[in-house]
């Protein structure tokens, strides 16, 4: 279904060219590109906070009950030594911030907003005002979440998974307002994400340029489309769940409290019913980004475009029926456990298909090792490791041992850092020229990538080892356990690597800000890429293109096509002759 010309023209008419003041241009903008930048800045800012929290956690694990450098100003009562309740708060907030306020805003918020209209040939989102609201509601959620650090009793400390009754009864943690703010913030964020999801789905279905059939859409758009559907269907469940939790905490209800007839496991079902689709929400855009970047720097089409699209659909479908694998030892009926093992093993198949297709894209290629490409290759390789470690947990008997150990922490970080974050870095380096009209510095890009890749592996791979050794999650002092003392040196090794990993992000910060103001001005299409966004100026003006929208004649990955002397053939290049039946 191609875009309705009527909608496109209506946009041109409505926007007019009246001068918008500073506030309407930079603060309450309804332009998808500005909103994208806002999400990006919010996500990157929160990443600093989430990262620092991780370093606090890592310090404690390596050197328990010693003063954390730099914290003596804040933790005045103990001279900088973290108390156990504060440790619980640190890992809870590290995960909450990274998942909800870093990865989702950057991948879905920033790149969803930036890429969708530009890559399908639309002038903006279907609902620009709703789009603007979705950012500001999300920013409000961020403020609420950060506020929890400043209330008496401290912030939420029941884990990002917030299991009840620990989270439902303030007395069990000693945390009062922090956990309430956690609930309220996520409630508000859910609204923001649902608004965004509605926008993305509507825009993709209704506003594609002429010739942009569904199977000519770039795979990153497919991934964002499917992600939006998952967001729309999963978030209401989380939103309801956190509301119920808040009521248990403040209004005397007993959804999750056995003392009042409630059921603790109900929280887990609600949370993971959202939670598992959520992790696919976190990875699918990154998969799309990798599928986007690999063809460009391999100079050949993506291997198996249809398989790639269908496998993402399969992952999305299956994501609803695997959530019980988080609950194998929870007390849930073991017969259900049996069913979830089956579905969880099956969901590995579409991911495997994708991996092989990425390898197929590399085969016979002409690979250019640009900074975006390096990050995309890192994504593929690290995601493989994360996916393979998941197989251990899919087998219920093995999961009995592995559940709640550091093996899980290793798996999580290989997929969300190794996967989503490298995907985010790849996207930032790739689209920076189009977003900001400037090139990033290649040397700084390498100075960022290589330490990140090396220290990422040095930090997280040993976690598989200590997890197999039995180290539990969420403890702050492994030395309290005799069976863990022999592997404590791994914790020290991991912490040192983690600090190096943190330092390795400095070139990225420098590169980002320096390039924003002093980077080389970007040409229209620095990567010689086929997709539509590269036909708009760098950066695109309001309404993206001039009077005429682009027309699409072919799929997005026609690199090294025999029909062109160049090794690329844009989607918008008119066909030379009516020669030959072409697949797309």
């Amino acid at each position: 279904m191609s875009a309705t010309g009527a909608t496109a023209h209506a946009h041109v008419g409505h926007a007019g060219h009246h001068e918008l003041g500073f506030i309407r241009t930079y603060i309450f903008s309804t332009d998808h590109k500005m909103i994208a930048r806002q999400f990006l800045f919010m996500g990157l800012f929160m990443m600093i906070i989430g990262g620092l929290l991780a370093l606090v956690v890592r310090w404690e694990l390596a050197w328990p009950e010693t003063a954390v450098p730099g914290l003596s100003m804040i933790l005045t009562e103990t001279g900088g030594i973290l108390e156990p309740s504060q440790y619980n708060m640190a890992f809870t907030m590290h995960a909450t911030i990274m998942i909800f306020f870093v990865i989702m805003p950057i991948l879905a918020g920033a790149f969803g907003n930036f890429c969708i209209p530009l890559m399908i040939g639309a002038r903006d989102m279907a609902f620009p005002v709703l789009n603007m609201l979705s950012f500001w509601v999300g920013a409000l959620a961020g403020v609420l979440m950060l506020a929890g650090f400043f209330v008496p009793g401290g912030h939420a400390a029941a884990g990002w998974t917030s299991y009840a009754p620990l989270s439902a009864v303030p007395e069990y943690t000693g945390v009062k307002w922090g956990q309430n703010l956690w609930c309220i913030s996520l409630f508000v964020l859910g609204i923001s994400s649902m608004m965004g999801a509605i926008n993305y789905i509507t825009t993709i279905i209704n506003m594609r340029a002429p010739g942009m059939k569904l199977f000519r859409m770039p795979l990153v758009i497919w991934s964002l489309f499917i992600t939006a559907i998952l967001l729309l269907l999963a978030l209401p469940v989380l939103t309801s769940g956190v509301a119920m939790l808040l009521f248990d905490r403040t209004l005397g209800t007993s959804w999750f409290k056995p003392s009042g007839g409630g059921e603790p496991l109900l929280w887990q079902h609600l949370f993971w019913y959202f939670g598992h689709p959520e992790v696919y929400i976190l990875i699918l855009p990154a998969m799309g980004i990798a599928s986007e970047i690999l063809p460009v720097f391999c100079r050949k089409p993506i291997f198996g475009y249809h398989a790639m699209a269908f496998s993402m659909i399969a992952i999305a479908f299956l994501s609803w029926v695997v959530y019980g694998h988080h609950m194998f030892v929870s007390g849930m009926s073991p017969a259900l456990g049996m069913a979830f093992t089956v579905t969880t093993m099956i969901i590995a198949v579409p991911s495997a298909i994708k991996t092989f297709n990425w390898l197929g894209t590399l085969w016979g290629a002409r690979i250019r090792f640009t900074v975006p490409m390096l990050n995309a290759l890192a994504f593929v390789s690290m995601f493989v490791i994360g996916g393979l470690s998941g197989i251990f947990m899919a087998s219920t008997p093995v999961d009995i041992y592995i559940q709640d150990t550091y093996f899980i922490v290793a798996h999580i970080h290989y997929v969300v850092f190794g996967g989503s974050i490298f995907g985010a870095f790849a996207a930032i380096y790739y689209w920076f020229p189009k977003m900001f009209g400037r090139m990033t510095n290649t040397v700084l890009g390498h100075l960022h990538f290589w330490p990140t890749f090396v220290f990422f592996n040095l930090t997280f791979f040993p976690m598989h080892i200590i997890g197999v050794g039995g180290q539990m999650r969420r403890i702050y002092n492994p030395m309290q356990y005799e069976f863990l003392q022999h592997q404590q040196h791994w914790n020290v090794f991991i912490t040192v690597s983690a600090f190096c990993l943190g330092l390795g992000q400095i070139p990225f910060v420098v590169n980002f800000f320096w390039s924003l103001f002093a980077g080389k001005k970007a040409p229209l299409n620095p990567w010689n890429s086929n997709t539509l966004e590269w036909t708009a100026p760098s950066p695109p003006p309001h309404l993206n293109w001039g009077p005429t929208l682009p027309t699409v004649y072919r799929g997005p990955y026609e690199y090294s096509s025999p029909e062109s002397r160049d090794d690329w053939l844009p989607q918008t290049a008119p066909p030379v002759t009516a020669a030959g039946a072409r697949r797309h």
Partner: protein
Amino acid sequence: MLDWWLPENVSTYGQEIDWLFHLIYYITGATFVLVFVTMLAFIVMYRDRPGRRARYTHGNTPLEIAWTVVPALILVVLTFLSVPAWSKIKMHVPPTDFDVNVTAKQFNWQVTYPGNDTVFLDEMHVPVNKVVRVHLRSQDVIHSFFVPQFRMKQDAVPGREIVQWFEVMKPGKYEWPCAELCGFGHSGMRGWIYVHPPAEYAKWAAENLTAAATPAAEAKPEAKKPEPRKEGKGKK
């Protein structure tokens, strides 16, 4: 190499868990090597060099089918291999006459034996080579009964009783941590399970599990015997 770090297994069903762990380890290890070697080879062989043009292809359907079916088959087989162990460990408790009650709380394991009022904190005594049936409860939040060397883990959920079992093949003293975040005392919440040869167990039981003694005791500390103690909240 990863398996070097597995603690010694001393339980019957732990052997099946370890077998599955190793099987998955070899399969994923082989896959890892295959994918990485291929990727590295491609990255080197197909790097951009002047005068070359990339191979223009959109895919290969037979290959697509192959690498869908083969992983699917491997995973289906893994599923079938996992089912018997799961059923044995979590769905069927072998017949036995040895029961023990464990009620978790912030931040201790409270152990009692049927017919005896004494509450033992953070220690359990069981005979070797006997199926031990555990009645697991919690009186406040979710905790998790984890004994690494038994390959045993089960969440203790307030409001319900969950029955689990284990059978240990080697006498010894085994560490028993809590594996589910239960508050600020989670780190350090830990008990010990003592597995005794039959004669030694009989001796321990005779000394410690006599029927309820007099409730009042002298103020001076007594030799070994813990007095019976009414533990109010635990049993629901």
